[in-house]
């Protein structure tokens, strides 16, 4: 066994992780600014040289694999019929594939929505609609509209199977690039993610990577195989479920706070934990990811302020902090690095709000119903109250002196009793920022990737009661 090099082309940084398979450990990491505008190889080369310097000798890598969220990541449009059903199922498939869902469209799409697909430079369109045996009129209409347009993005059809022949005919007549998949919601409220998700990953590797100019690196790198969030999702699932003899950690959540987005992952069935709750709505995936494009430390710092209530803003003001000015400064200077305890305090405030708001949107909720049998609850989404581990990752969390301060805002709170947030998880830190790298490694060496994660992702402190 030799050495593996895992590369993550991020929107800001290109991150390298060198692994010694024999030692089952990381030997070095490095990063450099991503240079997708010029030649992506430049940033990689800088990071590679740094890596070699820190290893102290030149080593040969048996294999180099990469994931990417550079050049805007994978931008998708999810199209369905009813907002809460096939549209939501399609959206979840996109998120599960590691995409940024830039557009969510329901019912019959119109000209301005087609224009939006073009304006937002959507990379892949996921077209769903109708349970099998159900409505096909809408999805056929939408296929026709897409076929008549000059959209060049590949179309993945994953709707009512009864419509598939007709849709194949419609799309092939106008020479669209398209792929036929299993329905994302074959039966009412039943979610079928895998087939469409795997197809999206394939298209990402074959079409999108090249279109984004990342293909050029292939002389140095064996493969770019995954969108980065998908690699993280794979690592998280592995860490939760374990592999063969090597046990996993069980139910866990991850918060990844970036400059532009905050991603939340939960590995859990999320079934009701209380007797009087009835699950309603579309099925949830075990490995669930949500991404908030308005919550982040730099590009999206102003969105964080919008998520704050007036009370919160005036509370900070009383402490002598003009949070709006601080967020605006960060939005203008994305390269900003906190210098003083004051700066770090602000980082904590913004990061805490990112986590708080993103968790609110990720976890399931309870809605009470008074019935003749007493109080009952509708549970929509996942019950994550019993989550065992909560892992923080992303630059701001990793570099913080007080990462628990940020993560605490993910916990269950009396003020938000209907949100099924974790009640007493053990906090952990992905201090070396290895999750995406381990997702890549897990494609070939899942056991080693799992053992490295268990070694390198550290416990911050024991149970934290809500």
């Amino acid at each position, binding site marked *: 066994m030799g050495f593996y090099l895992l590369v993550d082309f991020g929107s800001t940084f290109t991150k390298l992780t060198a692994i010694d398979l024999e030692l089952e450990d990381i030997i070095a990491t490095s990063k450099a600014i991503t240079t997708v505008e010029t030649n992506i190889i430049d940033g990689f080369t800088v990071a590679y040289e740094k890596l070699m310097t820190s290893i102290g000798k030149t080593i040969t890598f048996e294999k180099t694999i990469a994931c990417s969220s550079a050049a805007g990541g994978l931008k998708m449009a999810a199209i369905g019929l009813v907002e809460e059903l096939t549209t939501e199922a399609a959206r979840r498939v996109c998120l599960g594939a590691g995409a940024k869902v830039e557009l969510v469209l329901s019912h019959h799409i119109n000209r301005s929505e087609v224009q939006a697909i073009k304006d937002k430079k959507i990379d892949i369109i996921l077209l769903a609609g109708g349970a099998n*045996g*159900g*409505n096909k009129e809408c999805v056929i209409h939408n296929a026709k509209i897409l076929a008549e347009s000059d959209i060049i993005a590949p179309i993945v059809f994953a709707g009512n199977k009864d419509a598939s022949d007709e849709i194949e005919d419609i799309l092939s007549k106008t020479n669209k690039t398209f792929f036929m998949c299993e329905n994302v919601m074959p039966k009412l409220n039943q979610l079928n993610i895998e087939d469409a998700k795997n197809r999206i990953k394939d298209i990402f590797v074959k079409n999108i990577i090249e279109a984004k100019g990342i293909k050029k690196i292939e002389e140095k790198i064996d493969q770019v195989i995954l969108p980065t969030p998908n690699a993280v999702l794979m690592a998280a699932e592995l860490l939760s479920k374990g592999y063969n003899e090597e046990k996993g950690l069980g139910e866990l959540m991850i918060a990844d706070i970036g400059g532009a987005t905050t991603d939340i992952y939960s590995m859990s069935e999320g079934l009701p934990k209380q007797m009087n709750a009835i699950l*309603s709505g579309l099925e949830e995936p075990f490995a669930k990811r949500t991404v908030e494009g308005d919550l982040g430390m730099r590009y999206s710092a102003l969105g964080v302020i919008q998520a704050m209530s007036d009370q919160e803003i005036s509370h900070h003001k009383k402490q002598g902090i003009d949070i709006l000015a601080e967020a605006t400064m960060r939005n203008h200077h994305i390269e900003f690095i906190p210098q003083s305890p004051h700066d770090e305090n602000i980082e904590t405030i913004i990061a805490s709000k990112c986590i708080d708001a993103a968790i609110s949107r990720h976890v399931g909720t309870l809605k009470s119903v008074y*019935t003749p049998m007493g109080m009952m609850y509708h549970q929509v989404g996942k019950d994550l109250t019993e989550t065992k581990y909560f892992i923080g990752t992303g630059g701001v969390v990793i570099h913080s002196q007080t990462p628990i301060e940020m993560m605490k805002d993910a916990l269950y709170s009396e003020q938000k009793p209907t949100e099924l947030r974790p009640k007493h998880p053990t906090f952990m830190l992905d201090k070396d920022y290895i999750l995406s790298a381990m997702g890549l490694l897990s494609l070939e060496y899942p056991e080693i990737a799992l053992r490295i994660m268990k070694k390198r992702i550290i416990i911050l402190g024991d149970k934290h009661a809500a």
Partner: protein
Amino acid sequence: MKSIVIGVIGADVHAVGNRIIEYTLTREGYNVVNVGVLSSQEDFINAAIETSAHLILVSSLYGHGELDCKGMREKCQEAGLDDILLYVGGNIVVGKQDFQEVEKRFKDMGFNRVYPPGVTIEDVLDTIKADLGD
């Protein structure tokens, strides 16, 4: 195969009869889409849109059916389900009321068929088949 959406509307958790309805209609060759207990009007309607259902069969056992069913026909029209059939049955009103009165009230609300307590799904099969043209 024609689709029929069934379920128990409102804050009603009576689950058994609903299962019997599902079993019977499935046996009769229908694609039964069961939205379950504690279902809102929107749950029924969304399911009917996605599955292109011909009939929504609403059950209510706890006496609040009238409140729960109000406005359902209008919502169906709003959702483009112009031709959908609406049935309702069970203990759909409070107390012992004259059923003809009750039937009229529900028909005025846009329900095509209204059934009093004690009518089983077996009793209604012929009507369903006739209404759906089977």
